[in-house]
């Protein structure tokens, strides 16, 4: 009996074609390697470099002088991330489950605006808005909702949190609301037919299905906020302050790259831990 399966085609030029995908990737890999991995490597090595060879002095100085700033940074970013998560779920939830179509349209059009405003402009706007004699307090006093002696400045950690949430909330909402809009509405409608409240539907049906998207939005927001210099610099000269301000101070005023690198390493580890927790969670879910 003759085999009906056609013979495989001769593999002419197989070596060149197998290299082709790598050649296509090469420029991107080069850019990542040269402009991200290599400087990161130098920065990590720099954290352990001293005038007389390898040392832990930089890390010691970083923790000795800036441990309060590190704690302050983590608390501010964690609080902002939590508020961003709540806000994104609230806005996304209303866009998905809200009953007033006009209000949904207005909210959908408005929530994206801060996306297009740079952090430094947001910080500058906030300085004029939440200062002791800023627009917010003056307006509240003017319309009689607050006596002048109650006016206080929010240009401290509260101002940083407000600015971070104002700036990052649209980004997180974009991801979360998009995922909610893409859900199969059959489950939502079935729950509505059975008399479930909107809050119950949001907590029991919608959020579990978009939990991964919420995590992505929050992890990306966390990492972004960890690296922002302009907002703490402009909003709050108070101490403690965020690590980015301390890093800029060590480099700009003292030319001390070693301690700045050590602070950068600490910030990288903090961001890396969050990313690792998220990846671990994602891997567990993928394995199910």
């Amino acid at each position, binding site marked *: 009996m003759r085999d009906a399966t056609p013979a495989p085609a001769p593999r002419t030029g197989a070596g060149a074609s197998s290299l082709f995908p790598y050649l296509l990737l090469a420029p991107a890999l080069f850019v990542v390697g040269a402009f991200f991995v290599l400087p990161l490597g130098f920065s990590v090595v720099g954290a352990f470099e001293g005038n007389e060879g390898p040392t832990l002095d930089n890390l010691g100085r970083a923790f*000795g*002088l*800036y*441990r*309060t700033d590190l704690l302050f940074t983590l608390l501010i970013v964690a609080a902002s991330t939590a508020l961003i998560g709540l806000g994104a779920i609230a806005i996304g939830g209303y866009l998905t489950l809200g009953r007033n179509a006009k209000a949904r349209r207005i909210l959908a059009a408005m929530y994206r605006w801060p996306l297009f405003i740079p952090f430094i402009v947001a910080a500058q706007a906030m*300085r004029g808005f939440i*200062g*002791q*004699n800023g627009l917010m307090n003056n307006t509240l006093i003017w319309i009689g909702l607050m006596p002048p002696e109650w006016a206080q*400045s929010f*240009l401290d950690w509260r101002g940083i949190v407000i600015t971070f949430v104002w700036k990052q909330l649209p980004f997180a909402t974009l991801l979360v609301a998009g995922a909610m809009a893409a859900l199969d509405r059959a489950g939502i409608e079935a729950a509505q037919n059975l008399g479930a409240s909107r809050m119950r539907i949001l907590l029991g049906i919608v959020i579990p299905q978009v939990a991964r998207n919420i995590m992505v939005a929050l992890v990306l927001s966390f990492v972004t906020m960890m690296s922002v210099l302009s907002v703490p610099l*402009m909003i709050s*000269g*108070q*101490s*403690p*302050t965020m690590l980015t*301000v301390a890093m800029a*101070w060590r480099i*700009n*005023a*003292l*030319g001390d790259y070693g301690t700045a690198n050590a602070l950068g390493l600490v910030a990288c580890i903090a961001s890396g831990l969050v990313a690792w927790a998220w990846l671990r969670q994602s891997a567990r879910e993928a394995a199910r």
Partner: protein
Amino acid sequence: MDRRSLLLATAAIAGAGALPAHAQQRVTLNVLTAGDQNMVDYITDYLGPLFQRQNPGVTVRAIGTGPGDAGSQRIWERLEAQRRANAQSVDVDVAVVHQNMAGRMVAEGLLARFREQAATGNLATSAVTRNALGQNVDGFVMPMFNSQVAIAFNPARVPNPPTSFEALEQWARQNPRRFGYNGIRGGMSGVGFVFGWAYAFGPDQRRLIEGPFDAEAVAALTPALQRLREFNRNVVITGGNAGTLDALNRGEIDMGPVWMDMFYTWQAEGRLSPNMRLVLPESGLPGQPMYYVIPARAANADVARRFIELATSPPVQAEGIVRRFNWLPGIDAQHVQAHLDQQTWNRLFRDVPPDVLARGARPMPQADFMRAIQEAYERVVLN
């Protein structure tokens, strides 16, 4: 080309050849200046155009590198990078730097010696012309101006301002969050206040100013810095030199340390209430000059020297430094006073008369102490 055109072209070339050499060349003079925006404004709005009018073909390009020692640090980084790259000439022709960095640049051979060749070199004879925070800089620098930190206050809220740090400490306790300063990360007026505190409450003011450096002398400041930490609980930390003036003007604070020149300039420009006043505590607050320097291997060193000669000439020091920008002159005062009317001269000393200035003005600490005190502040006050 007909004969007439040829003759005209020949005449034009011959005419160009007859011009003075410096008038023909097109030169861009790069002036990098540390300090606040007023430093850039001074060169962009006043000194640069004046020099360009006197030197056709020269364009002055002023670049600000930022306030405080951080601004001088950036200039050092630029020069150091070009030295490491073995550049034959550097792209900074004139730099305006703080004392601390001027001393370091001289020690590291980054600057050219020029004061002996400058026509105005002998008009500046004060100690800061030769010594910058313990480093010999004789011949390498010309003071652009001198400035002084003082306490600005609102007389409507503070009719009797404290004239000592002890009195200030007590006032801040009785009036929480009505005193503001910019810490040590937001410009030199805040740094100067911290040094003034160390001078007032530390055991040996003279040692901090004159050196030699000793780590134990820094450790001896710990009680003073702990006292400052308590003081900070009752004050507002502002966003910078300008932030303190802003907060004062908005009524958010009633007192705070500022540069005297910025204070007078803001008042002259209508950015600060004319009612605000200055006081200088008797235990002293530091002041400092800014220096003109010429980097070694500057591409246009001769033009740079002429620029500094103009900048340190008595008429320019009188008109630009004193009258327009309210700084104390960089060259000796007697050369400048002759070019000013009495009213302008008096305005410079309106709140802080010459005798009070003489008693209260201090240099910044010796360079090693300067850095060590800032780090001690971070360790003791901020933690």
